[in-house]
Protein backbone atom coordinates (compact mmCIF):
# COMPACT_ATOMS: atom_id res chain seq x y z
CA UNK A 1 0.00 0.00 0.00
CA UNK A 2 2.67 2.46 1.16
CA UNK A 3 4.98 1.12 -1.52
CA UNK A 4 2.30 1.60 -4.19
CA UNK A 5 1.68 5.16 -3.01
CA UNK A 6 5.44 5.86 -2.94
CA UNK A 7 5.85 4.56 -6.48
CA UNK A 8 2.86 6.55 -7.70
CA UNK A 9 4.24 9.69 -6.03
CA UNK A 10 7.68 9.16 -7.53
CA UNK A 11 6.12 9.22 -11.02
CA UNK A 12 4.24 12.49 -10.56
CA UNK A 13 5.59 15.54 -12.43
CA UNK A 14 6.37 17.41 -9.20
CA UNK A 15 8.48 14.50 -7.91
CA UNK A 16 10.17 14.23 -11.26
CA UNK A 17 11.02 17.92 -11.13
CA UNK A 18 12.53 17.67 -7.63
CA UNK A 19 14.55 14.58 -8.61
CA UNK A 20 15.93 16.07 -11.78
CA UNK A 21 16.83 19.61 -10.81
CA UNK A 22 20.28 19.20 -9.33
CA UNK A 23 20.18 21.92 -6.68
CA UNK A 24 16.71 21.43 -5.19
CA UNK A 25 17.50 18.56 -2.81
CA UNK A 26 20.72 20.06 -1.35
CA UNK A 27 19.04 23.47 -1.01
CA UNK A 28 15.98 22.04 0.74
CA UNK A 29 18.21 19.88 2.96
CA UNK A 30 20.14 23.02 3.93
CA UNK A 31 16.90 24.78 4.91
CA UNK A 32 15.90 21.61 6.80
CA UNK A 33 19.20 21.61 8.74
CA UNK A 34 18.91 25.33 9.57
CA UNK A 35 15.42 24.70 10.96
CA UNK A 36 16.87 21.80 12.98
CA UNK A 37 19.43 24.30 14.32
CA UNK A 38 16.57 26.48 15.59
CA UNK A 39 14.82 23.53 17.24
CA UNK A 40 17.99 22.16 18.87
CA UNK A 41 19.09 25.53 20.26
CA UNK A 42 15.59 26.50 21.43
CA UNK A 43 15.02 23.16 23.15
CA UNK A 44 18.59 23.47 24.47
CA UNK A 45 17.94 26.87 26.07
CA UNK A 46 14.78 25.59 27.79
CA UNK A 47 16.61 22.48 28.98
CA UNK A 48 19.50 24.60 30.34
CA UNK A 49 16.97 26.70 32.24
CA UNK A 50 15.36 23.58 33.76
CA UNK A 51 18.81 22.25 34.68
CA UNK A 52 19.63 25.61 36.28
CA UNK A 53 22.55 26.27 33.93
CA UNK A 54 21.29 29.35 32.04
CA UNK A 55 18.60 32.02 32.10
CA UNK A 56 18.31 31.99 35.90
CA UNK A 57 17.65 35.72 36.02
CA UNK A 58 14.41 35.12 34.17
CA UNK A 59 11.35 33.23 35.28
CA UNK A 60 10.77 29.89 33.71
CA UNK A 61 7.72 31.03 31.80
CA UNK A 62 9.70 33.95 30.32
CA UNK A 63 12.24 31.51 28.91
CA UNK A 64 9.50 29.17 27.68
CA UNK A 65 7.57 32.00 25.99
CA UNK A 66 10.82 33.23 24.43
CA UNK A 67 11.77 29.93 22.79
CA UNK A 68 8.67 27.72 22.34
CA UNK A 69 7.23 29.82 19.45
CA UNK A 70 10.55 29.38 17.60
CA UNK A 71 10.24 25.59 18.00
CA UNK A 72 6.75 25.65 16.41
CA UNK A 73 7.87 27.98 13.63
CA UNK A 74 10.87 25.80 12.84
CA UNK A 75 8.69 22.67 12.93
CA UNK A 76 6.45 24.17 10.23
CA UNK A 77 9.55 24.81 8.07
CA UNK A 78 10.73 21.25 8.79
CA UNK A 79 7.35 19.85 7.79
CA UNK A 80 7.34 21.68 4.45
CA UNK A 81 11.00 21.07 3.60
CA UNK A 82 10.63 17.45 4.73
CA UNK A 83 7.55 17.05 2.52
CA UNK A 84 9.53 18.31 -0.49
CA UNK A 85 12.33 15.83 0.25
CA UNK A 86 9.83 12.97 0.60
CA UNK A 87 8.11 13.95 -2.65
CA UNK A 88 11.46 13.94 -4.41
CA UNK A 89 12.41 10.50 -3.13
CA UNK A 90 9.23 8.79 -1.89
CA UNK A 91 10.37 5.17 -2.14
CA UNK A 92 13.67 5.99 -0.44
CA UNK A 93 11.89 7.58 2.52
CA UNK A 94 8.29 6.48 3.11
CA UNK A 95 9.03 2.74 3.04
CA UNK A 96 12.28 3.20 4.94
CA UNK A 97 12.14 1.82 8.53
CA UNK A 98 14.45 4.61 9.76
CA UNK A 99 12.10 7.23 8.31
CA UNK A 100 9.13 5.53 9.99
CA UNK A 101 11.01 5.45 13.31
CA UNK A 102 11.83 9.14 12.88
CA UNK A 103 8.14 9.97 12.40
CA UNK A 104 7.17 8.07 15.57
CA UNK A 105 9.88 9.84 17.62
CA UNK A 106 8.84 13.17 16.10
CA UNK A 107 5.21 12.56 17.05
CA UNK A 108 6.29 11.93 20.67
CA UNK A 109 8.48 15.06 20.70
CA UNK A 110 5.64 17.21 19.32
CA UNK A 111 3.28 15.85 22.00
CA UNK A 112 5.84 16.65 24.71
CA UNK A 113 6.32 20.19 23.37
CA UNK A 114 2.56 20.78 23.24
CA UNK A 115 2.03 19.35 26.74
CA UNK A 116 4.90 21.48 28.02
CA UNK A 117 3.45 24.63 26.47
CA UNK A 118 0.02 23.87 27.93
CA UNK A 119 1.44 23.57 31.47
CA UNK A 120 3.22 26.91 31.06
CA UNK A 121 0.10 28.64 29.71
CA UNK A 122 -2.22 27.15 32.29
CA UNK A 123 -0.08 28.16 35.23
CA UNK A 124 2.77 30.58 34.61
CA UNK A 125 4.49 29.56 37.79
CA UNK A 126 4.05 25.80 37.43
CA UNK A 127 7.69 25.10 36.66
CA UNK A 128 9.07 27.85 38.89
CA UNK A 129 7.16 26.57 41.87
CA UNK A 130 8.00 22.96 41.35
CA UNK A 131 11.25 22.43 43.29
CA UNK A 132 9.66 19.29 44.71
CA UNK A 133 9.64 17.86 41.21
CA UNK A 134 13.09 19.22 40.40
CA UNK A 135 14.78 15.87 39.84
CA UNK A 136 11.91 14.56 37.73
CA UNK A 137 11.83 17.78 35.71
CA UNK A 138 15.59 17.65 35.09
CA UNK A 139 15.47 14.01 34.02
CA UNK A 140 12.54 14.77 31.74
CA UNK A 141 14.41 17.74 30.23
CA UNK A 142 17.51 15.70 29.45
CA UNK A 143 15.41 12.88 27.97
CA UNK A 144 13.54 15.35 25.78
CA UNK A 145 16.77 16.81 24.43
CA UNK A 146 17.94 13.23 23.82
CA UNK A 147 14.72 12.57 21.91
CA UNK A 148 15.39 15.50 19.54
CA UNK A 149 18.97 14.26 19.08
CA UNK A 150 17.59 10.82 18.21
CA UNK A 151 15.22 12.38 15.65
CA UNK A 152 18.14 14.16 13.96
CA UNK A 153 20.25 10.97 14.01
CA UNK A 154 17.39 8.97 12.49
CA UNK A 155 17.03 11.67 9.84
CA UNK A 156 20.65 11.37 8.78
CA UNK A 157 20.45 7.57 8.78
CA UNK A 158 17.56 7.56 6.29
CA UNK A 159 20.15 7.98 3.54
CA UNK A 160 22.01 4.85 4.71
CA UNK A 161 19.11 2.45 5.23
CA UNK A 162 17.37 2.63 1.87
CA UNK A 163 15.56 -0.62 1.03
CA UNK A 164 16.27 -2.09 -2.38
CA UNK A 165 14.17 -0.68 -5.20
CA UNK A 166 12.37 -3.84 -6.28
Amino acid sequence: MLMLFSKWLSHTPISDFIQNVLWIIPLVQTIHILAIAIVMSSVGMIVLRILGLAGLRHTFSEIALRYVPWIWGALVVLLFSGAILVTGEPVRSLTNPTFQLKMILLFIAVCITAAFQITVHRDHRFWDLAPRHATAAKTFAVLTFGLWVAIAVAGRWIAYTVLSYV
Partner: protein
Amino acid sequence: MIDLILNWLHDLPLSSAIRVSAWMFPTIESAHVIAIATVIGSIAIVDLRLLGVTSHRKPVTELSTEVLPWTWGFFMVAVITGGLMFMSKAPAYFGNTPFRLKMILLACAGLNMIAFHLLIYRSVHRWDRDVPTLRSAKIAGLLSLTFWIGVVAAGRWIGFTIEG
Protein backbone atom coordinates in the same frame (compact mmCIF):
# COMPACT_ATOMS: atom_id res chain seq x y z
CA MET B 1 54.11 17.98 0.38
CA ILE B 2 50.38 18.45 0.88
CA ASP B 3 49.78 15.24 -1.09
CA LEU B 4 52.06 13.36 1.29
CA ILE B 5 50.07 14.57 4.30
CA LEU B 6 46.73 13.82 2.63
CA ASN B 7 47.80 10.31 1.66
CA TRP B 8 49.29 9.69 5.08
CA LEU B 9 45.95 10.71 6.69
CA HIS B 10 44.05 8.57 4.20
CA ASP B 11 46.19 5.50 4.99
CA LEU B 12 45.94 5.69 8.78
CA PRO B 13 44.24 2.64 10.34
CA LEU B 14 41.47 4.84 11.77
CA SER B 15 40.77 6.33 8.32
CA SER B 16 40.43 2.96 6.65
CA ALA B 17 38.28 1.72 9.55
CA ILE B 18 35.87 4.64 8.92
CA ARG B 19 35.91 3.94 5.15
CA VAL B 20 35.25 0.23 5.48
CA SER B 21 32.71 0.28 8.30
CA ALA B 22 29.01 0.44 7.42
CA TRP B 23 28.03 2.37 10.54
CA MET B 24 31.00 4.57 11.51
CA PHE B 25 30.66 7.24 8.84
CA PRO B 26 26.88 7.78 9.25
CA THR B 27 27.29 7.87 13.03
CA ILE B 28 30.10 10.44 12.88
CA GLU B 29 28.12 12.40 10.31
CA SER B 30 25.01 12.41 12.53
CA ALA B 31 27.05 13.78 15.45
CA HIS B 32 28.54 16.37 13.07
CA VAL B 33 25.11 17.57 11.90
CA ILE B 34 23.75 17.81 15.45
CA ALA B 35 26.88 19.64 16.66
CA ILE B 36 26.76 22.13 13.77
CA ALA B 37 23.03 22.65 14.23
CA THR B 38 23.58 23.47 17.90
CA VAL B 39 26.55 25.73 17.13
CA ILE B 40 24.60 27.73 14.55
CA GLY B 41 21.38 27.85 16.53
CA SER B 42 23.18 29.17 19.62
CA ILE B 43 25.21 31.69 17.62
CA ALA B 44 22.00 32.83 15.96
CA ILE B 45 20.47 33.54 19.38
CA VAL B 46 23.31 36.01 20.06
CA ASP B 47 23.35 37.37 16.49
CA LEU B 48 19.60 38.05 16.56
CA ARG B 49 20.07 39.91 19.85
CA LEU B 50 22.80 42.03 18.25
CA LEU B 51 20.46 42.73 15.34
CA GLY B 52 17.73 43.76 17.77
CA VAL B 53 15.30 41.10 16.54
CA THR B 54 14.94 39.08 19.78
CA SER B 55 15.87 38.80 23.49
CA HIS B 56 15.33 42.52 24.03
CA ARG B 57 15.18 42.23 27.78
CA LYS B 58 18.49 40.44 28.06
CA PRO B 59 21.80 42.33 28.16
CA VAL B 60 24.19 41.22 25.42
CA THR B 61 26.84 40.18 27.97
CA GLU B 62 24.42 38.00 29.92
CA LEU B 63 23.23 36.19 26.80
CA SER B 64 26.80 35.74 25.52
CA THR B 65 28.16 34.31 28.77
CA GLU B 66 25.23 31.89 29.05
CA VAL B 67 25.16 30.68 25.47
CA LEU B 68 28.65 30.87 23.99
CA PRO B 69 30.44 28.33 26.24
CA TRP B 70 27.98 25.71 24.90
CA THR B 71 28.64 26.93 21.39
CA TRP B 72 32.36 26.28 21.86
CA GLY B 73 31.74 22.84 23.32
CA PHE B 74 29.61 21.77 20.37
CA PHE B 75 32.03 23.45 17.97
CA MET B 76 34.78 21.16 19.29
CA VAL B 77 32.52 18.16 18.62
CA ALA B 78 31.93 19.45 15.08
CA VAL B 79 35.69 19.89 14.52
CA ILE B 80 36.55 16.40 15.79
CA THR B 81 33.77 14.66 13.84
CA GLY B 82 34.56 16.77 10.77
CA GLY B 83 38.24 15.83 11.11
CA LEU B 84 37.36 12.12 11.26
CA MET B 85 35.23 12.37 8.11
CA PHE B 86 37.99 14.33 6.36
CA MET B 87 40.62 11.69 7.26
CA SER B 88 38.58 8.90 5.73
CA LYS B 89 38.86 10.44 2.25
CA ALA B 90 41.45 13.20 2.77
CA PRO B 91 42.59 13.68 -0.86
CA ALA B 92 38.99 13.66 -2.18
CA TYR B 93 37.78 16.22 0.38
CA PHE B 94 40.80 18.44 -0.15
CA GLY B 95 40.11 18.60 -3.87
CA ASN B 96 36.37 19.15 -3.44
CA THR B 97 35.24 22.70 -4.25
CA PRO B 98 32.28 22.85 -1.83
CA PHE B 99 34.62 21.60 0.92
CA ARG B 100 37.08 24.40 0.18
CA LEU B 101 34.24 26.91 0.09
CA LYS B 102 33.03 25.64 3.47
CA MET B 103 36.52 26.12 4.97
CA ILE B 104 36.73 29.65 3.55
CA LEU B 105 33.32 30.54 4.98
CA LEU B 106 34.34 29.03 8.32
CA ALA B 107 37.49 31.18 8.31
CA CYS B 108 35.35 34.25 7.49
CA ALA B 109 33.05 33.44 10.42
CA GLY B 110 36.13 33.10 12.66
CA LEU B 111 37.66 36.39 11.49
CA ASN B 112 34.35 38.16 11.93
CA MET B 113 34.15 36.80 15.49
CA ILE B 114 37.72 37.92 16.27
CA ALA B 115 37.08 41.38 14.83
CA PHE B 116 33.86 41.64 16.81
CA HIS B 117 35.59 40.75 20.07
CA LEU B 118 38.66 42.93 19.55
CA LEU B 119 36.97 46.01 18.11
CA ILE B 120 33.32 46.08 19.10
CA TYR B 121 32.69 43.93 22.16
CA ARG B 122 35.28 45.88 24.19
CA SER B 123 32.86 48.75 24.65
CA VAL B 124 29.91 46.45 25.35
CA HIS B 125 29.27 47.97 28.78
CA ARG B 126 28.17 51.15 27.00
CA TRP B 127 25.55 49.45 24.81
CA ASP B 128 24.84 46.21 26.70
CA ARG B 129 21.13 46.93 27.03
CA ASP B 130 20.60 48.87 23.80
CA VAL B 131 18.03 47.64 21.32
CA PRO B 132 19.13 47.61 18.60
CA THR B 133 22.85 47.62 19.31
CA LEU B 134 25.60 49.69 17.65
CA ARG B 135 25.58 49.70 13.88
CA SER B 136 28.95 47.88 13.85
CA ALA B 137 27.62 45.18 16.20
CA LYS B 138 24.58 44.74 13.96
CA ILE B 139 26.82 44.33 10.93
CA ALA B 140 28.92 41.73 12.79
CA GLY B 141 25.74 39.85 13.73
CA LEU B 142 24.45 39.89 10.16
CA LEU B 143 27.80 38.75 8.74
CA SER B 144 27.98 35.96 11.31
CA LEU B 145 24.52 34.64 10.35
CA THR B 146 25.38 34.85 6.65
CA PHE B 147 28.70 33.00 6.97
CA TRP B 148 27.23 30.24 9.14
CA ILE B 149 24.28 29.67 6.81
CA GLY B 150 26.86 29.45 4.02
CA VAL B 151 28.83 26.87 6.04
CA VAL B 152 25.73 24.65 6.26
CA ALA B 153 24.88 25.06 2.57
CA ALA B 154 28.44 24.30 1.42
CA GLY B 155 28.66 21.40 3.87
CA ARG B 156 25.49 19.79 2.56
CA TRP B 157 26.71 20.31 -1.00
CA ILE B 158 29.88 18.28 -0.23
CA GLY B 159 27.78 15.14 0.13
CA PHE B 160 26.49 15.54 -3.44
CA THR B 161 29.87 16.20 -5.04
CA ILE B 162 32.43 14.10 -3.19
CA GLU B 163 33.93 11.29 -5.20
CA GLY B 164 34.67 7.75 -4.13
